[in-house]
């Protein structure tokens, strides 16, 4: 079981949710697709990609809900042959988050939704008002490091930048 969270107040409620709902994995993400926290087993799944796709799916279903029903869908359930997904929004004082829950036949949609409501309550209570984090102090030579790293990524020995 892996638990990782960018913001500490998310970690415990998310882990409790995964344990109690008997989910395989829960990812909490920003609507822009950035991963905020994860609890559970990712196996071979790339978390960044899963979050990008979850954000896209959530955005699409929200827009679809507005067209069809006049308001965004609050949750989305997908039942695959082995795994199921539940995608829903959590509104807190700290901002809006999307939660992607992956579960299998150890759990059920009803169980996941029941404990998801608990997760929403816990996070709503725990969320700080407008959390502030300091900007990372990048060193004066960060541009040189950036150049070197990008040159290595592109298999280049020397970096020559030419403006148009």
């Amino acid at each position, binding site marked *: 079981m892996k638990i990782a969270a960018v913001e500490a107040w998310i970690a415990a409620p998310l882990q409790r949710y995964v344990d109690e709902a008997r989910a395989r994995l829960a990812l909490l993400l920003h609507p822009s697709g950035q991963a905020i926290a994860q609890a559970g087993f990712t196996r071979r799944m790339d978390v960044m990609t899963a979050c*990008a796709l979850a954000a896209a799916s959530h955005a*699409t279903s929200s827009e679809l809900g507005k067209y069809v029903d006049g308001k965004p869908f609050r949750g989305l359930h997908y039942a695959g042959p082995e795994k199921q997904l539940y995608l829903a929004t959590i509104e807190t004082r700290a901002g809006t988050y999307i939660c992607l829950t992956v579960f299998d036949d150890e759990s059920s949609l009803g169980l996941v939704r029941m404990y998801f409501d608990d997760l929403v309550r816990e996070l709503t209570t725990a969320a700080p008002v407008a959390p502030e984090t300091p*900007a990372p*102090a990048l060193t004066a030579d960060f541009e040189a490091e*950036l150049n070197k*790293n*990008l040159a290595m990524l592109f298999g280049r020995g020397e970096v020559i930048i030419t403006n148009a």
Partner: protein
Amino acid sequence: MSLVNYANREITCKIVYYGPGRSGKTSNLHYIYGQVPDERKGKMVSLATQTDRTLFFDFLPLDLGQISGFSTKFQLYTVPGQVYYQTTRKLVLQGADGVVFVADSQKRQLQENIESLQDLHHNLAEQGMEARAVPLVLQYNKHDLPSELIHSAAEMSDALNFRGVPEFTADALHGPGVFETLRAIAELVLKRLSAGQSAGAGAR
């Protein structure tokens, strides 16, 4: 919205490649994907139509390695350029830390470039982002085409670069200009982040 994880000293930034349809946004990502070693990139995801036009977005996660002691990751997205995908562009643009505007240098595409740049500013403003403050780099793509078919870099600059942002000519299919564009937007985004001014909702 740049994400800064102080616990494991990790920075994640979102870069969106924007521009008119068929200007070469996906080609930029394909070229980058082809150049970067496997251990430094994630899977490239393309949500495309049957004719390979981008339907929702392309997505490529990149690991830039250690910068100032932070493991630095960039998430590259493209938007669909066709006019009728306006809603999708807005969704993908959400939380962007920087934008690469990929313009098509062909003379007959100038009006599409201008309209797409206007569309970008409109969409940023709609999301409460000050368009002039968002890190932006212009790329004048397809500069490998015969000179009689394309505008020069100076002509493209006159038409599009009223902010005086970094600009590069490119041939995204074969690589020239792709690396320079990515380097420039990465530098702008990291400088802005370091100054404590995330383009989106604020660093976490």
